[in-house]
């Protein structure tokens, strides 16, 4: 209003489109994105409503379906632990000059990356006990009679083992890349001190490699949680049914398959959103304040970091400070215990401070 009064008559009033653009420029990117999401949910809600789902049925049975989350999580947790162990051993094997270690890890990653997960599930669930049975029949004198029962696993056990084996094969590459990202000079310094291979890995190489390995491993865990749904195909005993199996059985029994599927999808999604939140925080923590150790070749250099220096004005506006591109030199980002003075790494996406 005040501006209206002081506006020079020589400057024409902005046209409609320009006014819209000007108004839009005042709204932060985040708010706009939130509006887009609200719109999407509105459309989905409308579809939901017009499809006339049996909402009371969903409300009534969601807790039964959701209680399958326990086994989903147990299976994913077991799977990721096994996968991490296998990936570590596999990566060391891929980097080894020992032909046995190299060969075995090569076979392992090739097979489990070269066949579909669902085929592996059936191989372990159906083909493995059958093969064991045949072996017992063929060599009754050598193999104990319990041999085949030892290789007959429940779908739950197969789920953990196969997810672990399959993801471990892919994560072998992540671990190998992480270990190789540690500069060769580090291994040489450890060697020069007289460390054994184990000491070198445990004390020097792996602690540095894990900074690189942890974030993608979190992603693999989130992906694995969703792949546990595949286990439902094997059928499960009533006591250890994971989420999707519950949804399927209940949906079919009550002739509410669509409602059951939608519920399952929403639950998986919610689970993923929660873990992605933790994953993002983990990534920030791991990357915080880590800069290269010694001046080296360009590939050793830390990526450009955005740095906030000081805080400007700060009234009402989203911007917290000036953003500038850090130079290639190591920057005193104060990430370590001694709490640096003014410079702190900017963790938020850049648009926040634009």
């Amino acid at each position, binding site marked *: 209003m005040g501006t209206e009064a002081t506006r020079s008559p020589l400057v024409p009033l902005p046209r409609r489109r320009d006014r819209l653009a000007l108004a839009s420029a005042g709204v932060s990117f985040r708010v706009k994105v939130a509006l887009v999401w609200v719109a999407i949910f509105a459309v989905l809600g409308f579809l939901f409503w017009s499809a006339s789902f049996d909402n009371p049925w969903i409300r009534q049975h969601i807790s039964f379906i959701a209680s399958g989350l326990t086994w989903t999580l147990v299976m994913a947790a077991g799977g990721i632990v096994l996968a991490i162990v296998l990936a570590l051993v596999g990566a060391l094997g891929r980097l080894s000059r020992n032909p046995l270690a190299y060969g075995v890890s090569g076979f392992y990653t090739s097979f489990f990356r070269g066949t579909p997960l669902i085929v592996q599930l059936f191989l372990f669930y159906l083909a493995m006990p059958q093969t064991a049975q045949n072996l017992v029949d063929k060599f009754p004198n050598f193999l104990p009679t319990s041999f085949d029962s030892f290789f007959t696993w429940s779908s739950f056990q197969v789920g953990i083992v196969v997810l672990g084996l399959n993801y471990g094969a892919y994560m072998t590459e992540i671990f190998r890349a992480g270990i190789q990202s540690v500069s060769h*000079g580090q291994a040489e310094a450890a060697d020069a001190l007289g460390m054994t291979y184990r000491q070198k890995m445990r004390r020097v190489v792996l602690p540095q490699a894990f900074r690189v390995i942890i974030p993608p491993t979190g992603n693999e865990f989130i992906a694995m949680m969703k792949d546990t749904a595949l286990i439902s195909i094997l059928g499960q005993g009533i006591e250890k049914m994971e989420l999707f199996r519950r949804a399927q059985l209940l949906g079919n029994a009550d002739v509410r398959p669509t409602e059951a599927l939608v519920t399952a999808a929403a639950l998986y999604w919610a689970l993923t959103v929660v873990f992605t939140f933790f994953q993002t925080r983990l990534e920030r923590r791991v990357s915080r304040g880590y800069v290269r150790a010694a001046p080296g070749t360009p590939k050793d250099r830390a990526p450009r970091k955005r740095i906030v220096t000081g805080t400007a004005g700060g009234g009402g506006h989203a911007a917290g400070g000036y953003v500038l591109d850090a130079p290639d030199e190591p920057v005193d980002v104060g990430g370590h215990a001694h709490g640096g003075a003014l410079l702190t790494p900017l963790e938020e996406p850049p648009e926040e401070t634009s």
Partner: protein
Amino acid sequence: MSVSSGGAVVRVENLHKSFGDLEVLKGIDMEVERGEVVVIFGRSGSGKSTLLRCINFLEEPTMGTIEVSGQRIEVGHRIRSKRDQIRELRTRCGMVFQQFNLFPHMTAIENVMEGPVTVKGVDPERARPPAIEVLAKVGLADKANEYPIRLSGGQQQRVAIARALAMEPDVIMFDEPTSALDPELIGEVLAVMKALAVEMHMTMMVVTHEMGFAREVANRMAFFHEGRILEEGTPDQVFNETRFPETQRFLKAVL
């Protein structure tokens, strides 16, 4: 600090090293006496760094014999018993790298303690006081709890020297210790190295182009040329009575 047979701490006999078709070392014979400072110089690619890296088996020599503190190792297949010998040798033979190679996830003091604690099995509490002492020797006692990233290049290299010292080696090898440093930081590192030589009588093999340091501190200098030691002598002989034109040309270029 063990064994003093014959006085020689390091003895290299007929050492050859090839990378594929490229023969980098063509038969090196060298002895380093206890307390001696030997400066090795020569054009890049002449094999001087490779010699140091062969002595502690960071590079596998192609042929020859290496002896450090009486520990004699013939070049050959790296069977288990030999691997143990090599590790034993490495604990007596410190190494300081051009790129420092400090462990970035450890503080200065942790870097210094790492060798004694992990390799020698010293209790961390027992390893701490001598580690602080060693850091004090390189003038960085007040930086004990800093991470390498918060130290200047010169300070990092001094921590690296302290890390080598903490193992109480019989000899320390320096592989171009000041080449990666800004000019104004070179002095502090050379000063520490000089102190090691003069005050501690540390046996040292130094690959460097710092001819001022060589003139002042070295007992002996060896000029490397195309995989061989072309000329060897006291700094006085090398600088003032240069015998070979190659040496002369090199000295002219760096001085």
